[in-house]
């Protein structure tokens, strides 16, 4: 029997796919993630199953969408009876370890994995160093006969979440005028289109001057640009940690028999659509890095622009490499065949959910966004309008497509075994 590979899953937090050097962003340096991509495949159309921390993570580790696994929003508990990836691997001949951020309510990580470094909660800088160093030590010291699965939950660039509050006191002024390489505002900074109320109210809340809140509407242009600049610095920070882990792997006994998968739970607005943070379905929040590498097995130097990928694909992909069957009713698919250069039948669309009843259906060309109870639908032509600035849902030319995509979404969800709330 062929030796089963070790599997290293590295996850970051709040990292938009756009902010990767190898996907074309020149304002951020990501040499470690670019190196991993150069030695493997990077999926450019990869979407979080629900772009906020707990739900996205629950989807990775159950292979199920959030209406099924119960973690529909931050703080909601996972369905107790649903197996997670750690439990499944430990039961099937792997030793499953976890280092760093977990953040899935209702599931004790220490009951599912060997938990070698604690969740840093909200202190990314020190927490990521500990998670990384624990992973480095693990790769130097692991001596067991069974293959390992090691999940390293890094937290940055999540520290960007402190930016708005910290800068409340600056009355909208840029505090570091010495910085002269601020990136420009994105082309969709100012938009004028129909949006669901949930998106509007989220933006308005941050823009309004509410005393202790941010009052972002008062920010001078440079402060908006400084937000983006700072976001990129946090990404560089976590990219460095990833580099240390990859270096440690390459200097270890496991160099040739370890599959590496890297992804992020969700992105960040970073002023696209004048949004910050997450929990919405525009690409800046919903589209995330997804890289796989195993030299000699996985195709190298591939940027895949074709296949739609979801966070729910993590579980079946890991099971495929581990040589074990996943639990029943997986909603995701194994990426192994694609990663190894084959051309399997693949999904026509990917679905994501968002806090507040948001739903997204993304095909290779279009994206539909709906919110329960909200009459405003959004339809974007992602090829002609990748910045999502023109809502086509109401145009006569697009009504048929909108209806068709709505019907696909309804049919897809009709298969769900909904969690009891």
């Amino acid at each position: 029997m062929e030796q089963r590979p070790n599997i290293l899953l590295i996850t970051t937090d709040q990292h938009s796919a756009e902010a990767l050097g190898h996907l074309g962003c020149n304002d951020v340096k990501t040499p470690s993630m670019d190196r991993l991509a150069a030695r493997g495949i990077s999926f450019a159309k990869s979407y979080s199953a629900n772009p906020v921390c707990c739900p996205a993570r629950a989807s990775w580790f159950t292979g199920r969408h959030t209406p099924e696994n119960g973690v529909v929003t931050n703080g909601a508990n996972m369905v107790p009876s649903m197996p997670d990836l750690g439990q499944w691997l430990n039961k099937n001949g792997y030793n499953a370890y976890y280092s760093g951020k977990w953040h899935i309510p209702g599931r004790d990580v220490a009951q599912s994995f060997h938990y070698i470094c604690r969740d840093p909660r909200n202190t990314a800088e020190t927490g990521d160093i500990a998670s990384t160093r624990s992973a480095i030590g693990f790769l130097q010291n692991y001596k067991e006969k069974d293959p390992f699965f090691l999940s390293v939950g890094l937290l940055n660039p999540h520290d960007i979440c402190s930016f708005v509050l910290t800068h409340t006191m600056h009355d909208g002024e840029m505090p570091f005028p010495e910085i002269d390489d601020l990136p420009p505002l994105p082309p969709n900074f100012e938009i004028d289109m129909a949006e669901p109320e949930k998106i509007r109210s989220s933006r308005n809340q941050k823009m309004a001057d509410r005393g202790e809140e941010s009052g972002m509407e008062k920010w001078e242009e440079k402060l908006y640009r400084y937000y983006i600049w700072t976001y990129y610095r946090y990404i560089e920070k976590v990219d460095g940690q990833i580099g240390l882990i990859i270096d440690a792997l390459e200097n270890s006994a496991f160099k040739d028999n370890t599959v590496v998968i890297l992804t992020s739970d969700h992105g960040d607005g970073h002023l696209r659509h004048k949004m910050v943070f997450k929990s919405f379905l525009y690409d800046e929040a919903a589209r995330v890095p997804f890289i796989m590498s195993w030299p000699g097995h996985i195709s190298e130097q591939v940027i895949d622009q074709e296949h739609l990928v979801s966070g729910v694909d993590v579980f079946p992909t890991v099971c495929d490499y581990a040589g074990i069957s996943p639990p029943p009713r997986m909603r995701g698919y194994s990426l192994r065949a694609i990663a190894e250069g084959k051309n399997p039948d693949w999904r026509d669309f990917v679905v994501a959910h968002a806090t507040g009843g948001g739903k997204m259906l993304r095909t290779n060309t279009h994206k539909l966004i709906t919110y329960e109870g909200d009459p405003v639908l959004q339809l974007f032509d992602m090829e002609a309008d990748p910045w999502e600035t023109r809502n086509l849902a109401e145009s006569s030319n697009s009504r048929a497509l909108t209806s068709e995509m709505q019907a696909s979404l309804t049919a897809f969800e009709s298969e769900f075994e909904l969690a009891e709330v």
Partner: protein
Amino acid sequence: MAEPWEYIHTKTVLNKYGLPAGAFDPEAPGEQTYDIYWMNIRTKQGTPSRSHEPEATLRISAKNEGEDRHLGIICSDLKFDNTTEIDAQCENNALTSPKTWTLKYSNGSQAGKGLVEYTQKGEIRNSRLLMDGKEPAHSKTLGPYTADWCLFDAVQRLSARKDTTKHTFDLIEEFSMIRENQYLIYRGTSEITTDQSAVTADVYCHYGESVIPTCYYVDANGRLFLVVSTRRTVILKREAS
């Protein structure tokens, strides 16, 4: 425009610890202990962590050894029970550039016992970084360089020497990886006030790849007592000679 030390969480910590006073010689052998706080991002006010307790401590001992400078650094993450110890032999130069060092990491996790600890030797040889004798994947020939914790020693001596020039350098972040395009500038003085007292501090700011702007506040005696980088506040707890 507000200065970084005026961040709400930093001011809260400053009022708790007070400002330093008395003589200090940054060239003399001694040890300084700092507490590290993180702003709580889950409160609207941006206060320190809910418990208002430090999240980590940093102890730096420094002394001159012949022509070199020796630093002993211990960073303990109190919440997660992990410790990094660095013993570094450095150049006695403006940036306290490390030449050779030993890094030891340990972690109190029960499941990780015997599995996560490690020791690593680092050195700069012919201007190249070597970790356990090997170059990291992203390497380069270094120009002027330093490491992040070495800057704690360097700014004290820059202030004492009235050095206000711009220093450009490569950073050995965490004594483990190279970061390019770094610079340290003198930003002038700032009058820092707490509920009880006030000091005038020299302010040095560090910018660069992967660096959130970090301001170092040094009192008139050359004592570094506050380091602020957005949500992180590092504050002098005590010193011993």
